[in-house]
């Protein structure tokens, strides 16, 4: 159980940064009424951020070159998506996704 001065500063500093990025918008929105264009812009935030977060796991970055597909994740995404379409249940998507990935790893498919 030890902590160095650097580690302590990293925890406090990064903690302050993450809390500020989460909390300040709440304080701002509460106090200021937002222009219509900004509200319109923000209606697209959920679908765009979630899509981008998915892409982060489905593509592999190759700096300076075009991205490639993360084959294992893309393959496991197929049964997970089908589970979503059939059941509309988040739990089923997650469970089927994990099982698909375990099967892929067992047979060493997709690296």
């Amino acid at each position, binding site marked *: *159980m*030890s*902590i160095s001065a650097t*580690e302590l500063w*990293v*925890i406090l*500093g*990064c*903690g302050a*940064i*993450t809390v500020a*990025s*989460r*909390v*300040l*918008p*709440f304080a*701002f929105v*509460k106090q200021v009424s*937002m222009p219509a*264009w900004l*509200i319109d*812009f*923000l*209606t*697209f*935030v*959920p*679908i*765009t*951020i*979630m*899509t*981008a*977060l*998915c*892409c*982060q*796991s489905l*593509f592999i*970055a190759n700096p300076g070159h*075009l*991205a490639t597909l993360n084959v294992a*994740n893309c393959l*496991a*995404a197929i049964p*997970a*998506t089908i589970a*979503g379409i059939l059941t*509309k*249940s*988040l*739990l089923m*998507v*997650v*469970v089927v*996704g*994990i*099982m698909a990935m*375990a099967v892929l790893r067992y047979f060493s498919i997709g690296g």
Partner: protein
Amino acid sequence: MGPSLTFRTGVRDVLPTVFGYIGVGLAFGIVAHTSHLSLLVVAGMSFIVYTGSAQFIITSMLLLHDPLSAIFISTFLVNSRMILMSTSLAQYFRHESLFKNLLIGTLVTDETFALAMNKQNKTSGKLSFAWQSAANLVAYLVWGVATIVGALLGGMIADPTRFGFDFALTAMFIGLVYLQLISDRRLGLSLQLMVMIFVAIIYYFMIGLMSQNFALLVATVAGCLFGMEMKKCR
């Protein structure tokens, strides 16, 4: 997921996402252990910094003895998407007190944000402090405990990815984006599909040119602007 917005419903609604937290949390604990971080540092990272995948980045930068300023800048960049999410989510809580707004803001994450956006499709655009706090608290505690368990198990688990748990987080976002796609009636299916394809293309080309987190931000903002223009054209 039904229309009820109580604390209890919040706990139930957040349960599917817990798998993602456990998988990635265990992985973080194991990585932290092999990077020789003490339990106290792991706990500090998870309960004070609480920034999910960015904790991996901070850990590797600590290991490389990067300067504090570089660690702070990276943390800000990774978290800058939170500014967009918080601004978006805060609109549902304007009627609540400032104090309650700050409480919700402190613990909101990618996952609880996405969950809330799915939820409000079921409640005709309403969210409650009790429901959101339940989701936030469960996520926070599960993440913290999972990382500490991971750090304790450390050397014992040879390869946590063997059972596919690392895919839980990706699967969860796939599920959330699909549910968002079929249930957001304000935007509709075809417009959202076009925006998704646009975001994927932008992200694909951007990750060759910049860091993944920056590409994520660029693709998100570009996708929102594209969506606004397409909506006007309809």
